[in-house]
């Protein structure tokens, strides 16, 4: 197992700090329409460094911060952490456990942390480079996008290039 847990706090509909423990095998995420399932997928893309707001179903990056409800005020910061296991030395670091965190305040840039030490986006990218996580062809398949795999446009078949790269 590589992915141990995902923690969301203030990210989209996850106003309360929520830790999701992930086990081995196949985990089914279930719940009614609009309850937050796809938001978990967005959170994973986001913490891995997603820069395109469109790919996060948002217009500006601060749209991912909990916007409030009729009962609750909006929050001013969103944070997502990924806890990863490095026992198989998949990652180019010493530690056997790695935490990757991304945080954004309203009207500010994203901040990244690797094991709680401030990092840059490029550090996060280098950490995952060649591990096959996130950017790998189709390892994250968004809702409604399955048909797009079948597009024959060269720009859409990024998968071949990324595999070959």
């Amino acid at each position, binding site marked *: 197992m590589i992915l141990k847990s995902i923690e969301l706090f203030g990210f989209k509909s996850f106003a309360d700090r929520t830790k999701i423990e992930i086990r081995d*095998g196949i985990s089914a995420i279930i719940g009614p329409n609009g309850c937050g399932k796809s938001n978990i997928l967005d959170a994973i893309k986001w913490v891995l460094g997603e820069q395109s707001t469109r790919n996060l179903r948002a217009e500006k990056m601060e749209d991912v911060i909990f916007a409030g409800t009729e009962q609750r005020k909006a929050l001013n910061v969103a944070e997502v952490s990924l806890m990863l296991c490095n026992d198989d030395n998949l990652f180019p670091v010493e530690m056997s456990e790695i935490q990757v965190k991304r945080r954004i305040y309203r009207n500010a840039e994203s901040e990244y942390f690797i094991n709680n030490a401030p990092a840059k986006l490029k550090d996060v990218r280098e950490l995952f480079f060649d591990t096959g996580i996130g950017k790998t062809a189709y390892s994250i398949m968004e809702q409604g996008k399955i048909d797009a795999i079948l597009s024959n*446009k060269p720009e859409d078949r990024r998968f071949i290039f990324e595999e070959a790269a």
Partner: protein
Amino acid sequence: STRRFEETYAQVKKNFHSSFRVLFGGGRAELKLVDPDSVLESGIDILAQPPGKKLEHISLLSGGERSLVAIALLFAVYRVKPSPFCVLDEIDAALDDKNIGQFIGMLAEFADKSQFLIISHNKKTVTSATSLLGVTMEESGVSKLVTIKLKNQEDAKVHA
């Protein structure tokens, strides 16, 4: 780089044909470079022949057939380079019961190599999972996690 592309492409092509046959229970499918002389820029056409039907461009296939072809391609690429974890959001939406069975059958083959997070509304898909993560909104607009025991034994423990 062209060479690495061609090797990867050849592997994906081969895997695609075989995973198609497993998912469709027969027939055949092909990847075809639109422009074989300009491999790195060329588009790729997909042709598919479900069992008993004719080989045709995938634009003529049904919604469910297209989803199944996409799943065949997804797993074909996956076999070339499995990622440690994989998140799939409602990719079974257009599949009928039989094809859901085909999909989860193939998924089971990869479950020991990687962790899969599958978002689905389909009972068949959900009951094939090894663990369940329930998401609810008890309070309007605020997501909450509930752990659910399989075999319909909901214990509603809240992870917060």
